[in-house]
């Protein structure tokens, strides 16, 4: 961006080390103003081209949905492009469900919709009307941990814990679906949940214990 060079900086780039913080602040300030200007005319032209004044109204239209989230019925008005993940985390403060990759590659955002495990980052909230959503917050029975949560703690099924809510939601579904009959089967049906710390062997042990314990999941 050639324009940036002409900006009145309090210290020039050559005076490195003299007032770096100020320079960086100014750079950020000016460059963001520049970015705003750079976008504005372009956007205005584009807006006119697309007759945006009409389209904006419909694009900003919200969709009304009723969701049952962790046993509670919620009537919500949401923007169409809101994902179920963002609805849970940003609007309902249910931050137990994690945003890992946000592109359906890691499984950190796994929740249950009508009893089936799905990726909330690739689900539009507007498309879940009338559905029953269970997140990690809805798994425990009051202060009594769900058997899978207890087993993850017992078997050290995590290190940093970021993937854990998704792992646990997936693990519960894995047993409910009947896909936890062997180590290999567990590994295959848990492959949609990536753990960077590599807690996989302990996760398999936790799932096996719950499966073999015969507890209701």
């Amino acid at each position: 961006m050639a324009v940036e060079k002409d900006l009145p900086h309090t210290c020039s780039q050559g005076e490195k080390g003299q007032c770096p913080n100020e320079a960086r602040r100014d750079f950020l300030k000016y460059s963001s103003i520049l970015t705003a200007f750079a976008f504005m005319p372009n956007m205005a032209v584009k807006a006119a081209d697309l007759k945006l004044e009409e389209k904006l109204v419909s694009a900003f239209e919200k969709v009304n949905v009723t969701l049952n989230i962790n046993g509670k019925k919620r009537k919500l008005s949401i923007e169409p492009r809101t994902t179920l993940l963002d609805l849970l985390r940003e609007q309902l403060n249910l931050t137990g469900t994690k945003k890992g990759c946000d592109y359906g590659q890691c499984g950190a955002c796994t929740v249950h919709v009508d009893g089936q495990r799905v990726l909330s980052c690739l689900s539009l909230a507007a498309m879940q009307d009338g559905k029953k959503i269970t997140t990690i917050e809805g798994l425990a029975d009051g202060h009594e941990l769900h058997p899978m949560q207890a087993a993850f703690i017992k078997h050290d099924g995590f290190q940093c814990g970021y993937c854990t809510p998704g792992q646990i939601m997936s693990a519960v579904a894995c047993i409910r679906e009947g896909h936890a009959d062997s180590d290999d089967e567990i590994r295959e049906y848990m492959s949609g949940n990536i753990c960077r710390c590599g807690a996989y062997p302990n996760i398999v042990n936790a799932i096996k214990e719950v499966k073999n314990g015969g507890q209701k999941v």
Partner: protein
Amino acid sequence: MNQFQYVQPAKSKAAIDTVTKDQTAMFIAGGTNLLDLMKRGIVTPEKLVDINKLPLKKIQKENGAVRIGALALNGETAEDKLVLEKHPLLSQALNAGASAQLRNMATVGGNMLQRTRCPYFYDTALPCNKREPGTGCGALEGYNRMHAIFGHSEKCIAVHPSDMSVALAALDATVLVSGPKGDRKIPFADFHRLPGDTPHIETNLQKGELILAVDLPENPYTKNIHYLKIRDRASYAFALISVAAALDLDGSNIRSARLAMGGVAHKPWRLTEAENFLAGKPATETTFRQAADLAMRGAKAFEHNKFKLKLGPNAIVQALKNAAGVA
């Protein structure tokens, strides 16, 4: 993600009309690929027509065929009794794809319409004739390890990512569609297109046409089948190469065979010549190797995917051995 209008019609006709009339409208079913592409700014529909209220979910017998509704989920289709009994190859291919979560979301209709996972298609900073016609193919001279060895053009060397579609190709499926000009049936071999000069046009669906179902005709391939998928990790990765193999055996002789490959072309790659060669031959490794060599004729690799020229025939032999139960 760009802003869009969301509508959820109750009738197919309304859904078709909307997408036919509005150039910027698209159908959405499971959304597992579309939302991914929208988040990255690769696809930017201004209207999403949610088809999930349409009655297209059933899996049932229809005139001797198994008819799978377009909205049947990948996971439930893989575990469906009728599919397991009549077309277990499809079940295996479905279970080889994606993860349990994604299979609970993705539909059969949507799976066929998956876009390629070519990194040059996915990176909006790089050239791609499929994403922006006329900008060139970044993969041709770039890092093309995952790319095609059959049917590619100078415009595009991407591969189709679907496992399910490889089985549907082998099983001679027919796609039932409905559009502004009425209903029609598309043989699976004619459903996807090779890139040619128009890699951005991936199927022969017309604007506004909606997939209603897939028909799988009755066949004898219920026992000696195998879907072999070779990938960079044991599970949850796209195929480097996959092979759908089905044999109808009379003792140790092959009455007829079906073969298709994934990860090698812009569409599921049916190996008709190899199939014809196998008919009437003994089910031995020697025969399988000859069929594989025949199947690989005309393959052309690029700088980083030459390994596919060796992996391909080996995968065919292994899939056939697994299908036949030959050690």
